[in-house]
């Protein structure tokens, strides 16, 4: 049978792309304050907290390197354990549905294209589904290419707007207390699905995963820090009034021959979104295979999850009350902590008991 392994570098580069995609949709309303510079501190704190959150996942992976969390739950907890991959499945659907919805909102509020934003969402999900059906190696390799494009695109935008940077736009940190920093930490933790991705995909990753995770945290911190620093330095208070300040930053870029690069920026965002969706649709396939206890990832599961993500995205973007619930930072934070910490901890404890009852060598590893 063909191996399904990707390198730690490929996995964490893909996660970097996913993280950047989420960060691009950041705004002052979500961060809970006018000084976006404080979000840099929030991000660094969130990364520190992330290390703690991920401990049960690492612990379980150390004990069961060949099983994903869903499979471990089913093996250790029996029928009730099937709830764990099911919850992960739902988590991926909701998180990606909201990411897609944010992009749709961006299209509707800011860009107003000549074509339907729902059509864009359908095409995005279609592309992601295609990738998820081709397998994890395909998505990981493609993510590396998108990563390069992303760096080139962002490098171009950063380089061009840097001359507009004005130190006068920078405001002192913690001027209004620590509330914004706290809100920022919640937001950054809420908007990351890396813990759930790790729970499902770490067995398929080879190489130095710990180093990869640390590099991911450091790399994204540098990227997010540079991005927010430029947003604040170039846009000042104007950034707070924008729904999508990073887009506003891209729209003021001007090269001699090209007046605006916002369309290119949006295109790169879409490419990253495809990668994120594809990875998480693949995770849904893994969840369903854990429930069904089949060695091969469910292809039907990819279709189901893609359709559900699309439905969630369309509902969130078009129905205001759904938006209020699903885009609520606190709710998403709880979901992320549950998926990244509580459920892995539960499975880890179950595994400890399970192995106490059953000696290691008698555990069925099929």
């Amino acid at each position, binding site marked *: 049978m063909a191996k399904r392994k990707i390198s730690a570098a490929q996995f964490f580069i893909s996660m970097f792309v996913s993280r950047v995609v989420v960060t691009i949709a950041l705004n002052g309303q979500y961060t809970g304050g006018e000084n976006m510079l404080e979000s840099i501190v929030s991000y660094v704190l969130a990364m520190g907290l992330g290390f703690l959150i991920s401990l049960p996942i690492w612990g379980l992976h150390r004990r069961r390197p060949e099983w994903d969390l869903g499979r471990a739950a089913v093996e250790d907890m029996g029928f009730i354990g099937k709830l764990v991959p099911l919850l992960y499945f739902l988590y991926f659907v909701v998180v990606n549905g909201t990411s897609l919805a944010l992009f749709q909102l961006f299209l509707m509020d800011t860009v107003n294209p000549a074509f339907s934003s729902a059509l864009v969402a359908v095409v995005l999900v279609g592309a992601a589904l295609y990738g998820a059906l081709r397998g994890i*190696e395909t998505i990981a*390799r493609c993510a590396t*290419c998108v990563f390069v494009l992303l760096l080139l695109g962002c490098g171009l935008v950063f380089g061009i707007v840097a001359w507009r940077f004005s130190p006068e736009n920078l405001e002192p940190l913690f001027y209004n207390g620590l509330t914004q920093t706290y809100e920022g930490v919640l937001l950054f933790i809420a908007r990351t699905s890396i813990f759930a991705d790790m729970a499902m995909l770490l067995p398929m990753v080879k190489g130095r995963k710990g180093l990869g995770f640390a590099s991911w945290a450091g790399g994204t911190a540098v990227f997010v820090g540079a991005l927010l620093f430029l947003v604040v330095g170039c846009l000042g208070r104007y950034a707070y009034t924008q729904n999508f300040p990073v887009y506003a930053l891209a729209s003021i870029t001007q090269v001699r021959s090209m007046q605006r690069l916002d*369309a290119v920026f949006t295109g790169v965002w879409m*490419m990253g979104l495809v990668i994120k969706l594809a990875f998480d649709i693949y995770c849904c396939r893994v969840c369903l295979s854990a429930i069904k206890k089949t060695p091969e990832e469910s292809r039907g599961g990819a279709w189901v999850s893609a359709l559900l993500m699309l439905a969630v995205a369309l509902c969130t973007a078009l129905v205001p009350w759904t938006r209020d619930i699903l885009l609520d930072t606190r709710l998403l934070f709880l979901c992320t902590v549950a998926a990244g910490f509580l459920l892995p901890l539960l499975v880890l404890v179950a595994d400890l008991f399970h192995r106490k009852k059953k000696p290691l060598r008698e555990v069925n590893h099929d």
Partner: protein
Amino acid sequence: MEKVSARLQDNKEYLQAEFQNSMDFMMRELELSGTGAALFALDGLVSKQTITLSILNPLMGAPIMPGDGEMKLKFIEQNVLGSVEQKREEQMEQILLLLMSGFAVLCIDGCAEALVFGVQGFDSRGPEEPQNEVMQRGAKDGFTESYQSNMAMIRRRMKTTSLKFEKAQVGGQSHTPLAICYLEGVASPTVIEKVKKRLEACDLQTALGAGYLVSFLEKGGIFTGVGMSERPDVVCGKIEEGRVAILVEGTPSVLLVPFLFVENFQTLDDYLTRPFYGTFIRWLKYLAFFLSAFLPGLYVAITTHHPELLPESLLLKIAEAEAQTPFPVMAETLLLYFLYEVLREAGLRAPRSLSATVSIVGGLVVGDTAVSAGLVSAPSLLVVALTAIAGYAVPRLYEPLALLRLAFLLAGNFMGVWGVMLGLVLLLLNLCGSESFGVPLLSPVAPYNGNLVFRDVFARAGWQKLSRRDAKVQDMPGSREIGQ
């Protein structure tokens, strides 16, 4: 399976029945020391002069032969005839195949075996400079239709006993012979086995060209995982890197597997020039590929959906030109593109005497008149022309490019730059998910290997570096099972 009969009459009847109504079937009856014999051959496939001088004359002048048919055959084999390609055969099916391959067959009454001689004498084309793989500095000889001559061309360039040619055959009716060529100890045994298995699984009735086999060797995808070359020097270079070549009778092109995406941009001239120029040419080809694939799509996308991307002066010029024409940019570009493809096809298929006429009608009449009549704008014409020229810089990718640019054109029209970028992601996903005999098609770019990428992909290193470490194709990053 029918066997050769000990009765000459039975064999004659069998062969006459098989070649009934075939006027090229020849039979010459003889008497060898009182025993009946017959020589069979197919007219046009054999050299009559060789048959007369090497078979009939020695047989006629042979001394009295002792014993029965069996002993006579042995005597002839050992004392009378000295053909290089001569063997005994007892299966009628095999004899039929040999007859159709230009062999002569001698049957003697009382002997249940026949003697076959290689006396091929059909006309074949000599090596000429390949038409589709023109090189500035490379050798000027190309493969011919005879796979045996092609084997010799490779052997002349690689004088090593590690070079192996294994015989195989495809086509239920055509029985097209082919040779699987590789360097023992360099090519992956897994790849060689896979090639054999896939060729065995090929259920074609007739294989008239190497192209027939491509779909049996690859697994689909936009870009092919099977390469083709008309040049022996190129094939030798590929074999040296661990690839397997398949030489098919009747085709002046040799198939090469595994074949990676980056190889579409590599030509022998890159390696015959200085490294910095080789690298420059390589990048020129990458740029040409992107221009050819994306330019029409981006042009339509930007002019239709994102005019703000263009500088004001350029935008005004395009808008002014478009205002004179009745069609939208998309329709114009599509029309011009189809027109170009039709002209290309006509130029390719038309008799040579008419090619010049097609060019004049296409280039001058259609192009110039359409613009002056205000049917299409000059910028659209320029874009399509640039696209076409760029496409010829990477001729191996012409087929996928022809369809890709159409797809990007439609995507650009419906969803602007975003459509083109989404198309790019889909293309990347397809490329990243495709393999050629277990080697990722996009290797060594994705999966990435810095050493290999800066050795012969993004840069063409000097021969000091290239010769220091051989880069076998099966050692590319991400290769499954093979080479490990």
